[in-house]
């Protein structure tokens, strides 16, 4: 579309909606500033519009009114004219959101609007507009709206929660998604900018709900320690895209200071975002976690960060590692790399808190690769429980073997833990060794051994327990009888009803509660119903 016809287009549109549309691009912007904007605006559209696109630039403020609004109005206007990407109509009249007016647009740009209030018909209109396949562009204070309209706040992907990073400061921004088409303007380079940064907190702001393109770089000390920044603000998004229904949302938190409006990189980014919102620029909006595992060295860095973690410190780096662990699902190669990195931490002089965290992660993805390292920790009084925390969940005979070996070497409380883990894993090969512990002088170990046999409940364990009931007394004997009952229950579950009934009938002679439980078991077995 050439410039002339576009101007005519705007004029015609303005005519149809004359009472609604009032231009507020007043002469606040000086000629000199205007020239800067004109020079900074991209020369051409990033993608050719599929058809003539109309953008509604809305700038009503019921709350704080940013002085950058007229600058953005001008920039939007000039950008549309210069690139031919769209024609723009500027308004601050709520009536423009009525469907008959709204539906002629392809996208709405909220230019620093604050505390917008939509009555029900207008809510419906805007929601249908977006969900039906149109777009929303948000500039800076666009997230300072919809406090009584949660659905719209959700649509925006965030809501203003303050600006610890004031307009006078210079703040560091990192490009989270350098290969994203909307980030081409930045050429993959992190940058610093003097501007006011809007804080939008979870859960409205979330990397699992929107694709975050750039965010504050908290490795920069000034940015991290700005007044009022809390640990939960460590991930503060600057720009993002999301799909909402069939519609598209693009938001960029920059644009408080006037000179941002003649920053060519930011303007290029905004044009790309606008073309996305208008429906011409097809880009990926799939949410993505903070860290992509990427190259080996990047991954190593993430792991290095948690080596000194201690309780009470920020957990942000741990979260990054957890995300890596989860995202490695389906890629054995990635997963193996992640596991190796975790094991390196266990072998290092990392803090206890770090090692505990590592064991939790290994419980989810550990393989036999982890067994030597974790197995060696089993006999360590301090690390044994956490090594089991991982090992108990890791499949494979190597784990059972490591647990059995450790059981033979140790005594006391941590031995109880290992007996229990072998019981949980129903390791038949451990039965004879565990059976030998039923007579242990340490009652805690004897009780754990009995309980483990009741869990394993194979033929050999059943036999051991049957013998033990005549060699034990008191509380321990009650536990033996309980474990023996569980063997009978297991037999029922395996369809060996006759064997089970023999045990129930034997135990029915015992006083309650065992006798009653045995009778119960017998009745259930005869009815064909058992406990699982």
């Amino acid at each position: 579309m050439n410039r002339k016809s576009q101007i005519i287009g705007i004029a015609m549109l303005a005519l149809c909606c004359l009472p609604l549309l009032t231009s507020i691009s007043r002469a606040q912007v000086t000629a000199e500033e205007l020239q800067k904007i004109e020079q900074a605006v991209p020369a051409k559209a990033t993608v050719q519009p599929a058809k003539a696109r109309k953008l509604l630039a809305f700038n009503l403020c019921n709350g704080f009114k940013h002085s950058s609004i007229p600058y953005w109005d001008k920039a939007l206007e000039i950008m549309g004219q210069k690139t031919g990407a769209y024609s723009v109509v500027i308004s601050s009249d709520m009536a423009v959101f009525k469907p008959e007016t709204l539906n002629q647009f392809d996208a709405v740009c909220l230019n620093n609007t604050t505390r917008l209030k939509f009555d029900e018909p207008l809510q419906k209109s805007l929601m249908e507009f977006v969900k039906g396949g149109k777009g929303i562009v948000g500039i800076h204070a666009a997230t300072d709206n919809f406090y009584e309209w949660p659905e719209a706040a959700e649509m925006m992907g965030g809501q203003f929660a303050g600006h610890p990073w004031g307009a006078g400061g210079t703040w560091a921004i990192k490009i989270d998604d350098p290969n994203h088409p909307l980030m081409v303007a930045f050429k993959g380079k992190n940058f610093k900018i003097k501007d006011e940064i809007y804080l939008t907190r979870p859960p409205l702001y979330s990397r699992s709900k929107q694709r975050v393109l750039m965010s504050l770089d908290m490795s920069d000390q000034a940015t991290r320690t700005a007044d009022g920044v809390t640990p939960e603000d460590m991930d503060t998004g600057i720009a993002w895209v999301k799909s909402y229904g069939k519609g598209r949302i693009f938001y960029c938190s920059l644009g408080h200071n006037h000179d941002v409006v003649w920053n060519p990189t930011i303007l290029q980014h905004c044009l790309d975002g606008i073309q996305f919102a208008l429906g011409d620029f097809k880009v990926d909006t799939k949410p993505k976690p903070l860290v992509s595992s990427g190259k080996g060295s990047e991954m190593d860095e993430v792991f290095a960060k948690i080596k000194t973690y201690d309780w009470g410190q920020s957990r942000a780096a741990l979260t990054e590692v957890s995300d890596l662990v989860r995202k490695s699902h389906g890629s054995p190669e990635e997963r193996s790399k992640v596991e190796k990195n975790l094991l390196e931490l266990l072998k290092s002089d990392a803090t206890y808190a770090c090692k505990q965290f590592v064991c939790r992660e290994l419980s989810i993805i550990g393989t036999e690769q982890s067994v030597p390292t974790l197995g060696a920790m089993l006999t360590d009084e301090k690390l044994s429980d956490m090594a089991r925390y991982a090992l108990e969940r890791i499949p494979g005979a190597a784990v059972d073997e490591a647990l059995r070996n450790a059981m033979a070497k140790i005594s006391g409380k941590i031995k109880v833990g290992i007996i229990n883990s072998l019981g949980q894993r129903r390791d038949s090969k451990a039965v004879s060794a565990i059976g030998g512990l039923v007579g242990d002088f340490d009652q805690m170990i004897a009780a754990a051994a009995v309980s483990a046999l009741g869990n394993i409940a194979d033929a050999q364990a059943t036999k051991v327990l049957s013998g033990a009931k005549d060699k034990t007394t008191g509380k321990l004997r009650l536990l033996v009888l309980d474990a023996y009952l569980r063997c009978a229950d297991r037999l029922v579950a395996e369809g060996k009803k006759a064997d089970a009934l023999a045990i129930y009938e034997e135990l029915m002679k015992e006083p309650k509660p065992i006798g009653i439980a045995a009778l119960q078991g017998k009745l259930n077995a005869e009815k064909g119903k058992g406990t699982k």
Partner: protein
Amino acid sequence: MNGKKIKRREFLKKAAGIAGGAIAFPYIVPSSVLGKDDSTAPSNRIVMGCIGMGGQGTGNMQGFLGKNEVQVVAVCDVDKRNRDKAKKIVDDKYGNSDCKTYLDFREVIERQDIDALSLATPDHWHSIPVVMAARAGKDMYGEKPLARTIREGRAMVDAVHRYGRIWQTGSWQRSVADFHRACELVRNGRIGKVHLVEVGLPTGGGSDNKPIQPVPEGFDWDFWLGPAPWVPYRGVSHWDWRWIMDYSGGQLTDWAGHHIDIAHWGLGLDRTGPVEIEGRGVYPKDGIFDVPTEYKFTCKYANGLTMIVANDRQQPKGMGAVWYGEKGWVHVDRGRIASNPPAILKEVIGPNEIKLYESRDHQQNFLDCVRSRKETITPIEIALRSISVGLLGEIAMLTERKLRWDPDKEIFPGDDEANRLLSRSFRSPWHL
């Protein structure tokens, strides 16, 4: 368990006297078999011990103290402040100083004179006392959610069944008229075939990274942690434990035993579970709390029904359970019930229709059942099935994958990685 037709009057009649014919639940020994002369069969008063004397446990205890047929003789907590406070309440009520205090719940369970227990420990401390108490022949009123993991829950159900114990879950909404009414309308087809259920539960919140602190005097922190991994004390224990994954699954699992339980009840699916689960949660990236603040997951059931569980902000009707059928919907929440068309709420349930178990006093229902040896309104299998939905949702969100679930075998078929999350290793020396 279809058509649980226990009529209130009939039920009370039986409960008041010596138990008549036992209703056909397989795992409870009919009283006729036990014999009336059984030495520990409840006589005039049900002697109770209370374990876990935080806010909920104390509230439950006060409820039981208000029943003339109950004698509370023991209170137990790992925090001296809690147990002393509880003892004072009991002693004030009885006008003596007979109530014993315990730090170690095992000593309460060992007391031969105690018939029944009121349990309100944190979720990670649910399974061990229940399994022990079942072995010792105690009946139990225990708090929801049943367990922290599905494997623990199954061990609890097995133990309670094995020993024929009476169990009531603290899912008290079942004993409230609106919930009962809503479920009965849905069960009797007043909204037609149900295709969708929405369950809205509270939204969570984050926290800062709390520094390590000295353990308050009289508080046995190591015992409080019990089977959970050892961590230093950081000022989070009573009440706030529910925002940390070692001890709880957050608002989701805290409330699963309420509105998911009700949703299941209305569907008659409270002894089975979904076959497919998928969802996403928003997890705090920092701070001591690590449970999801927002969550939304979809469960598919074998009959084709869909259940969407989410925090209230992500549900069109907010908190509560909403059943959508071919002829309308019913929504129930605490203090509100609604339907579309509105006339559904005026419907009368005919004499030949499904009558759901009726109770208007959750604790009384437990006591009645302790005497009658009949099943309570929220038995343990149902409690497990209610929390299982929450726990399955948690696993789906943690793995960020669509999971298939076998509600009979209680495994994710062919998914070893998800199966790992069905249980957790206990810190020594604790075991079931």
